[in-house]
C-alpha cells in the first residue's frame, strides 16, 4: 500500500528567499501528521506545493501514489485543503457555498444534495445554512470552511494552522472533530506553531525549521530522545539576581541535575533538566531548604516538543518566531500566495 502522502527532496524558492530547502515526509494512511515549526519555517509553502497551489522547484510529491506535479487534477480529487484564513463569499449563504463547492468537484446533483445536508448536520450548521456567511461568527466560519473542505470526502485533509485565532471552545471542537475524521479513515496533515495542538493531536510529527525537517517521529519518541525531565522552579515570585545565581550554583552540584538555566524573562525562574527519577523534585527542594532558600513554586514535567525543538536548533520556538519575523519577505510571500502557479 502506498503512502497517503509522500514528499521527497522538496525545494521552493521565492525570489531571494529559500522558503523550503529540503523537506521529505511520508504520511501513512489514516494518521494525523503534524508539521510543527515557527512562523516562516516553510510549513505553508510545503502544503501549498502539496495542494497544487505552488509548483516546487525540485522534489517529488505524491498523494496515494499519484504525482501532484504530473497529474494535478487527479491528485486534487483526493485532497481537501483548509487554508489558514477562512475565505468565504460573504454575500452567499453557507448552503450556496456548499453547492458551489460540490459543482467544483463535479458531484452529481442528487449526491451533492444529500452530502450537503449531511455536512450541514455534521457540523451543526442547520440554523445558519441559509444565512449569508457575512453574518457568521469566527467559529461558525471555521465550521463552514471544514464542511467545504470535507464535502467531497477527501482521502487526505490538509489544514494550515487550523485553530489560529479561534476561541478555546471552538479549538477543542475542531480537535475533537479531527479525531472523529481520523476514526472514519481520513489521513490528516496539520501545520501548527502551537506545541499543544501537535502534541494533543498528531500521531507523528515533523519539526521543520528554516525550510528543513530537523526531526521526525511520534511526539513521545521525540521527547524520549531529548531525555531528562524538566523542573521549573521559582525561589520567589520575582527572584533577585543574587539569589538566582546562588541557587544555580547550588543545584548544579546535585548529581541528578544535568543543567540549570535562569530565565530572566520570567522573573528569574530556574529551568532544570534532571534525571527522570521520582525523587528528583524532593532532592531539589531539600537542597534549597538546607541552603536557607525558600520555594515559591516548583513543578516537574516531561520534556515538551519545545524542548525537542530547543535541543535540535539551540533556540526556543518563540525565539525563532521573533527572529523569523525580521527575516521574512512578506511582500514576496503575499505575491506568491496570490499567484496561481
Amino acid at each position: 500500500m502506498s503512502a497517503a502522502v509522500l514528499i521527497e527532496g522538496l525545494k521552493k524558492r521565492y525570489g531571494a528567499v529559500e522558503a523550503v530547502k529540503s523537506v521529505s515526509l511520508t504520511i501513512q494512511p489514516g494518521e494525523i501528521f503534524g508539521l510543527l515549526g515557527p512562523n516562516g519555517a516553510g510549513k505553508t509553502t510545503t502544503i501549498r506545493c502539496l495542494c497544487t497551489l505552488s509548483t516546487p522547484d525540485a522534489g517529488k510529491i505524491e498523494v496515494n501514489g499519484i504525482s501532484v506535479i504530473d497529474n494535478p487534477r487527479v491528485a486534487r480529487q483526493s485532497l481537501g485543503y483548509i487554508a489558514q484564513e477562512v475565505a468565504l463569499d460573504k454575500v452567499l449563504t453557507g448552503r450556496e457555498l456548499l453547492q458551489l463547492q460540490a459543482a467544483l468537484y463535479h458531484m452529481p446533483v442528487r449526491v451533492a444534495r444529500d452530502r450537503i445536508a449531511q455536512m450541514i448536520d455534521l457540523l451543526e450548521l442547520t440554523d445558519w445554512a441559509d444565512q449569508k456567511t457575512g453574518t457568521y461568527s469566527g467559529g461558525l466560519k471555521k465550521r463552514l470552511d471544514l464542511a467545504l473542505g470535507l464535502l467531497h470526502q477527501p482521502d487526505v485533509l490538509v489544514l494550515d494552522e487550523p485553530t489560529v485565532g479561534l476561541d478555546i471552545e471552538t479549538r477543542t471542537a475542531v480537535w475533537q472533530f479531527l479525531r472523529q475524521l481520523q476514526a472514519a479513515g481520513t489521513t490528516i496533515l496539520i501545520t501548527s506553531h502551537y506545541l499543544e495542538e501537535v502534541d494533543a493531536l498528531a500521531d507523528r510529527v515533523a519539526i521543520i525549521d528554516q525550510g528543513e525537517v530537523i526531526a521526525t517521529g511520534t511526539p513521545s519518541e521525540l521527547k524520549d530522545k531529548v531525555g531528562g525531565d524538566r523542573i521549573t522552579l521559582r525561589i520567589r515570585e520575582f527572584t533577585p539576581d543574587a539569589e538566582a545565581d546562588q541557587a544555580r550554583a547550588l543545584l548544579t552540584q546535585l548529581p541528578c541535575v544535568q543543567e540549570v538555566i535562569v530565565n530572566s524573562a520570567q522573573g528569574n525562574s530556574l529551568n532544570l533538566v534532571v534525571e527522570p527519577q521520582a525523587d528528583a523534585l524532593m532532592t531539589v527542594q531539600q537542597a534549597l531548604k538546607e541552603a536557607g532558600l525558600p520555594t515559591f513554586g516548583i513543578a516537574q514535567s516531561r520534556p515538551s516538543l519545545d524542548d525537542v525543538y530547543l535541543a535540535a536548533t539551540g533556540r526556543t520556538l518563540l525565539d525563532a518566531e521573533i527572529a523569523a519575523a525580521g527575516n521574512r519577505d512578506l511582500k514576496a510571500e503575499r505575491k506568491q500566495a496570490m499567484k496561481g502557479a
Partner: protein
Amino acid sequence: MSTTITPPTPPKSTAIENAELRDWKAAIAADAQTPPPGLFSSAFLQETAAMTRRLFIQLQRRPTTLAAGVIQPVMWLLLFGALFQNVPQGLFGDSQNYGQFLGAGIIVFTAFGGALNAGLPVMFDREFGFLNRFLVAPLASRYSIVMASAIFIAAMSLVQTAAIVGLSAFLGAGLPDVLGLGLLVLIVLTLVLGVTALSLGLAFSLPGHIELIAVIFVTNLPLLFASTALVPLAFMPPWLQVVASLNPLSYAIEPIRYVYLHGDWGLGSVVMQAPFGAVTLGGAIAVLIGFCGLSLALVHPLLRRRIA
C-alpha cells in the same frame, strides 16, 4: 467560583462517511487516468454554471451594482445630450440631433467600461484567498473562471444596452430594424469578450487591486475621448483623428451609429472616413473580431501560465 467545562457534543461519526459518495469517487478514480475533460465536457459546463450562478447571486443581493450600471449610462445620455443640445444641425453628420448621435457612443462606452472592470472581482477573490478554492479543485479547465466572468459581464452589458436603446428611442433617436438590433448585440458582445479577456489577464498579472484600478482609471476616459463616441471624426484635429481611427471603440461605435441612422445599411456601407481611407461596416466588424481574437491570443499564454 467554579465552572464545569463541557466539551461540545461529539459529531455523529456515522455521518462522516457517505457510501453513495464513495461509489461516485471510486467511479471518478477509475477514469482518473484519462486525459482531462475538455472545454465542452459536462464537467466544464457544471463548474462554469456554478461560478456564474455565484456572480448572479451576488448581483441579486447587491442590486445597487445593477442600478448604478443602468443609471450611469442614462445620466451620460441625458447630461451629455443636454450639454451639446444647441450645436448647429449638420455638425454631427446625418444625425437629427446630438442625442441621436450620442446613443451609439454611450452603448459602446458602457459595455466597454463594464468589461474593463471584469477583472476586479477576480482580483478580490485572489486577494481574499477565495480563488484558492477554485485552484485546489479538480476543475475540468480553469478557463471556467474566465468563462463565468465573461458570461456575467456580457449579460450585464446586454441589460445596460437595452436600457440605453430604450431611453434613446424615448428621446426620439428611433430604433434600428431587427437585423440592426442583432448586429448591435453582436458588436457589443464581441467588444465585451475582447475587453473582458484583457481585464482578466490584468487581474492575474498585476500585484493587487490598487494597481488594477489605476490601470482601469488611465484607460477608461482617455479611450472614450479618443474615440468617435462624443464627436464625429471630422470634428477632431488631424492627430486625434489618427488616434480615434486606431481606437477599437470607434469600430464598435460607427457601425451602430450607422445602423441607427440608415435603414438601408449593408456590410459594404461606409461608416467612417478614417485618415487612411474609408471604413465599411463589414470592415469595422472584421476589425472588432480581429481585436477580440488578438486580445484572447494575448491573454491565453498568460492565463495558461498563471492558472491553467
